[in-house]
């Protein structure tokens, strides 16, 4: 038996919008800790990890650890039918092959039940080790989204370099090159507008912009984004969800191989 009641239903709608283009099918895991998901895109380059902690739900009942395989496109279709102020409840019975999304209007005068078929999804769960990152950049999420969008009109890849000067995003394409440098800036009116750079070691990595742009679909979830970089690891792009948890995107870097030397 599973019953999760989320007063801030729009949050779930935003989460789906952030994930559905990256991942088609995924298993949602439910435990006493919370409602979570880990899934890779079909080419195994990017991974998304979602956590909505149980404390963030108004009512959270999950008798045993369960996973539910869902098609995210279909789930998003159903959640789009919920109003932005609606309270959303996720329900499933043991052994059932369906999940129910219940939408209640704030005034309780309209209640909608959407039942969706579950799927058997054979997915690999990857172990993500806790790591010390060489550099961590926190910046306004809208700013990061803008940079990714702008750069992708010039090139396909972005080089993200963190030095003492700040964080530099650069690209190169057929028509020319682009470099955007963001410096540390903490003298702002609102804390979410700050750009904070913690650097232990300078780092420079190359990524496919296509994926970065897909990650920025999560921008409505949070005013700030945290980008963690290490030279031997995939980048982590994290959007914190207030009082609930996070959406974290991991992206494998592009690597120039030395065996590809020219004749």
């Amino acid at each position: 038996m599973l019953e999760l009641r989320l007063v801030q239903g729009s949050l779930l709608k935003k989460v789906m919008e952030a994930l559905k283009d990256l991942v088609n099918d995924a298993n949602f895991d439910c435990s006493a800790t919370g409602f979570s998901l880990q899934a890779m895109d079909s080419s195994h380059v990017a991974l998304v990890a979602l956590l909505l902690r149980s404390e963030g739900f108004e009512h959270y009942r999950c008798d045993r650890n369960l996973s539910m395989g869902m098609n995210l496109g279909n789930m998003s279709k159903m959640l789009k039918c919920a109003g932005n102020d609606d309270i959303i409840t996720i329900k499933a019975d043991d052994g059932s092959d369906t999940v129910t999304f219940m939408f209640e209007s704030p005034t309780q005068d309209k209640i909608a039940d959407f039942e969706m078929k579950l799927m058997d999804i054979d997915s690999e769960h990857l172990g993500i080790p806790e790591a010390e990152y060489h550099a961590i950049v926190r910046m306004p999420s809208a700013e990061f989204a803008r940079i990714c969008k702008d750069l992708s009109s010039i090139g396909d890849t972005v080089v993200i370099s963190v030095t003492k000067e700040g964080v530099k995003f650069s690209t190169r394409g057929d028509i020319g090159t682009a470099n955007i440098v963001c410096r540390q800036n903490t003298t702002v009116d609102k804390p979410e507008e700050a750009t904070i750079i913690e650097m232990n070691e300078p780092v420079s990595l190359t990524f496919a912009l296509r994926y970065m742009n897909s990650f920025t679909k999560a921008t409505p979830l949070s005013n700030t984004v945290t980008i963690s970089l290490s030279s031997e690891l995939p980048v982590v792009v994290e959007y914190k969800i207030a009082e609930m948890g996070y959406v974290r995107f991991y992206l494998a870097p592009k690597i120039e191989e030395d065996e590809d030397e020219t004749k």
Partner: protein
Amino acid sequence: MGIKGLTKLLADNAPKAMKEQKFESYFGRKIAIDASMSIYQFLIVVGRSGTEMLTNEAGEVTSHLQGMFSRTIRLLEAGIKPVYVFDGKPPQLKSQELAKRYSKRADATEDLAQAMETGNKEDIEKFSKRTVKVTKQHNEDCKRLLKLMGVPVIEAPSEAEAQCAALCKSGKVYAVASEDMDSLTFGAPRFLRHLMDPSSRKVPVMEFEVAKILEELNLSTDQFIDLCILSGCDYCDSIRGIGGQTALKLIRQHGSIENILENINKERYQIPDNWPYEEARQLFKVPEVYADDNQLEIKWTAPDDEGLIAFLVNENGFNSDRVTKAIEKIKAAKNKSSQGRLESFFKPVASPTVPIKRKVCFH
């Protein structure tokens, strides 16, 4: 060719061991490809109408070059790193099978002549496909082409499938691509079918994992090899009246060919005289392959522009513009193969949860 009926046997008895994958999902992967099998397919399919095939000015067939060139570029553009493995000397045991194929081709040649007389177009096409043989020249042409493209080529000491499987076992490549199911019998841990199919056919790649096959069939490696021999392989006859399904039942019941031979009704099943099943088994278990790193140089290099134009355009009548564009594609593709995969950083772990939906068992 390969193991008789193995695909169906696995689909029926080990469905979880095979899964459909998108062609694109293999980017960044090194894949060993059975070259002779691919060349054979190209000769059958590429640019054929009736008995007419693509040729150069001298009238020599170029279908294999066209096929090898365009399919390899398709692989490279998807970020896949192909290694082509060519057949060496066939094992002695295969001579019977090869003789059979030879006589089939001879029959087809006669049939073709007849069909040409009557002018039946369908028959002409059908029989002319059956007369196709991959010659030494075809192989040499393709090797030359691949080297010019910067794609590594390995000449196996004997069977190409066996060498492919060895490369995969030692982790030098991620998977083996062939249409010949005996790659699995040779123990290729991961085997792909339809990777080399034309994109127009829109067939997903079928991936087989040997470990899962053994688990699902509940057999050991040796028992699986015995199952393949009983089902019918290239190296020896099978027992009349025993197909894949019966073979599986017998192996499960008795455990090995020796025990089966002791226990089955010899009146009902005729065991071939001097049945060389032990030699066939040995061929599958310890095939003749190179294992030394020095003999297996696997390196992808930049394409040789001038060499490709000289070979394809000047010698074989390819369109110069198309070849130039294709070379650009090869160069652009190099960039793509640099994308890393998450599995190189994070390792799989067991999922902490169980599915809410109860798995239904039909057994």
